[in-house]
């Protein structure tokens, strides 16, 4: 498989999953804001913080704006200058897909192209203005359609494995970041740091002590909804929601397809198919790193300590980022890792 094609496959997967995950995060946070009985800063700022865009956001709008749902939503949905906005992601997915149309099935290309065309249309603008919830729902549905078509219409071969590897590695990072948004409720010090942007944003101050329990439950529920894990969690835990269980579920539940453990496991399986033992010289590095992460997560499950959650997630995010760049390096045939490292995939940014 040609290196360039492999890289595009990888990015189609990553961008589609990123668009979906961001839409989901905005949709759930919007619902949380209404009756979470929390200051709006505490609700909206983590959304920007975990995206890694807090410095850019503050430069453009000032840090007070991080408590304004509308500013945050516009920035995370539409801003082309935001490297992880939904628009950037959908555009990136479509650009990558366009470069490898012959590798994808026609169905996948059409679904992805339609998603892009709809998203830049006036109709989408109108939906955004009048029915915010609906636009997030449609983004989720359309990206899910593309991803479903990948599995149901594409040859189950290396290109699909690489595309799906992109989906899973992206999902690991997204889930870890989402979990980290409110980790300060678990680690007990009330003012924990957030992955990546500790010094820029940090976590919101602890809500009033009297409301503590109620607010926490609201957050856990929204966390589960953000990861589409509400029903699955409820079935496992029979309606009982605690922070410990919710976080443990999203970290370790092997039967839940969006948990970190599941995604790491599955990604490892794909990597072993992409780079079997005889190709160890090429793909050995990312594979070994991911295998180590999988084993490490397994150990953490045994001695899970909620107070170390932030460190755990930071480790997962950092290691996954390294796996990504090493995997791209392996795919590229480049001689050094630095040649292949660095996001985003398609280099030209529109607008």
């Amino acid at each position, binding site marked *: 498989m040609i290196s360039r094609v492999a890289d595009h496959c990888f990015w189609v997967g990553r961008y589609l999953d990123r668009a979906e995950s961001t839409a989901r995060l905005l949709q759930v946070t919007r619902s949380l804001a209404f009756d979470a009985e929390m200051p709006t800063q505490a609700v909206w700022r983590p959304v920007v913080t975990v995206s890694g865009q807090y410095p850019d956001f503050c430069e453009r709008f000032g840090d007070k704006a991080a408590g304004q749902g509308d500013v945050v939503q516009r920035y995370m949905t539409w801003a082309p200058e935001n490297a992880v906005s939904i628009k950037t992601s959908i555009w990136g997915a479509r650009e990558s897909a366009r470069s490898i149309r012959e590798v994808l099935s026609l169905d996948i290309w059409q679904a992805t192209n339609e998603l892009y065309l709809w998203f830049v249309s006036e109709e989408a603008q109108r939906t955004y203005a009048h029915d915010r919830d609906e636009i997030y729902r449609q983004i989720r549905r359309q990206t899910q359609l593309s991803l479903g078509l990948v599995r149901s219409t594409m040859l189950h071969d290396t290109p699909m494995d690489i595309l799906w590897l992109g989906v899973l590695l992206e999902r690991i990072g997204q889930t870890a970041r989402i979990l980290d948004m409110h980790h300060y409720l678990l680690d007990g010090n009330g003012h924990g740091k957030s992955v990546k942007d500790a010094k820029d944003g940090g976590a919101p101050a602890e809500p009033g002590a009297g409301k503590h329990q109620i607010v926490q439950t609201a957050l856990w529920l929204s966390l589960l909804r953000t990861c589409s894990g509400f029903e699955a969690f*409820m079935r496992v835990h029979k*309606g009982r929601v605690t922070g410990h269980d919710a976080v443990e579920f999203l970290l370790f539940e092997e039967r839940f397809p969006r948990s970190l453990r599941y995604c790491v496991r599955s990604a490892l399986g794909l990597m072993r198919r992409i780079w079997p033992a005889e190709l160890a010289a090429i793909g050995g590095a990312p594979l070994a790193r991911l295998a180590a992460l999988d084993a490490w997560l397994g150990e953490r499950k045994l001695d899970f300590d909620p107070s170390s959650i932030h460190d755990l997630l930071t480790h997962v995010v950092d290691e996954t980022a390294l796996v990504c760049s090493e995997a791209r390096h392996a795919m590229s045939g480049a001689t050094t890792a630095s040649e292949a490292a660095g996001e985003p995939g398609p280099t030209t940014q529109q607008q």
Partner: protein
Amino acid sequence: MAEAEGSLLLKGYGALSGTYDELVDAAGVPRPHARVATELLDGLTPEGFQRCQSLAELSLVQQGVTFSVYSDQRGTEKVMPVCLVPRVMGAPEWERVERGLVQRLAALELFLADVYGDQRTLREGVVPGEMVEKSKSFEPRLRGVKPAGGVRIHIAGVDLIRDPTGTLRVLEDNLRTPSGVSYVLENRQVTKRVFQHAVEGGVRRVDDYPSQLAEALRSVSPEGVDPEESTVVVLTPGPFNSAYFEHSFLARSMGLELVEASDLVVDGDDVYVRTTMGPRRVHVIYRRTDDAFIDPEFFRPDSLLGVPGLMRAWAKGRVALANAPGNGVADDKAIYPFVPDLIRFFLKEEPILEQVPTFVCARRDDRMFVVEHLDELVVKAVDEAGGYGMLMGPQATQAERDKFRELVLAEPRKYIAQHRVELSTCPTWVPERKRLEPRRVDLRPFALASRALGTIPSRWVLPGGLTRVALREGSYVVNSSQGGGSKDTWVQSSQA
């Protein structure tokens, strides 16, 4: 005046004279605690609001939030109409309602234990024995049963109305299988979806109800069973039941199995659910079936519906039933007039919540007054519910009143009467006229009980509850089967 400023929708809205409006005062000025809502309506044009309404309805259809109407033979599914203008309650008032409900339910819980126990209330004349013994819902064979977990009223829905002076009054207790809570949760979802600029942080949340309910159900697991390990199921009559949506909604959001009677079997004194892995013991059943359909061996030998032997298992404390069979005696309309006395008797406290003054037709003086003032009174048959079997005296025809006079004189115990309360109103969207008009509302808060530590179970009240609205102009009937709709109920957050 202040009412018109900025608010396009509330412009020209006026409360009915002699009626309390939930959102605006007599001069049309928004009540201070209702500002969270009126500010949301500010700037919305009628067209904009209509668009929101259409979105809300679409959203309910998509989610399948429907009920079936018994009288409709085609089994048509209908969407409960929802009006997006919320009903708002201030934090201090709600705090009082909460205390009042907890107090009232504590007394009713003790009353049930007494009726099915020593019957001190009957011996000491707090409640006339006849009122209990002749109640259709009183089940003498259950005397002496101690339910698992010590709770009988696990889930209560108490209907409140507000009179023209602004006083909230209890209209009715629902202690059997009160329904409607799923609409509370769905209405909130719809509100969140539709309103673009929500009032952030000012409203108390409702979506932890399922968790609270699961916890309450688990807490009443039978003796010797670890609540952590117990199996709890939701028992539904099936998809044809009018509240089936709610049954599946609650099971799904609690992560519990939804079962029908045929899925359960009693072996010895234990209840089992049939599974692919063989029978599995069930410890707690949240049953949404009527008493009559719990157990054919006990209630209806002629019926095939229900789980044979279930009552035996319950009576032996091997399974908890929520709510307990036989509860109907305490929410009987004939007992209602005595609830304030029950509160004083059991708790040695004055009732916090008022109720509606009631004539008990079984009493001679009351009966004579009732039959002579039928054109002023609302007469209710004690065994009917859902707005059926009642006479709205002031609106009724002479023939209807004559019929009720005969009914009352023939079987006085079956009837009570009240003056019609001018139910409070809330601004409500009238699509035909594209504007807000006052429509009458009531409120059904929901309260959950967990295992008793002392003699009284601990109770949790869902902030707000179901606001039902009589959509027809001039109507007082809020039941969904008779042209009623619902509204989201916002309880002001005490931190706001």
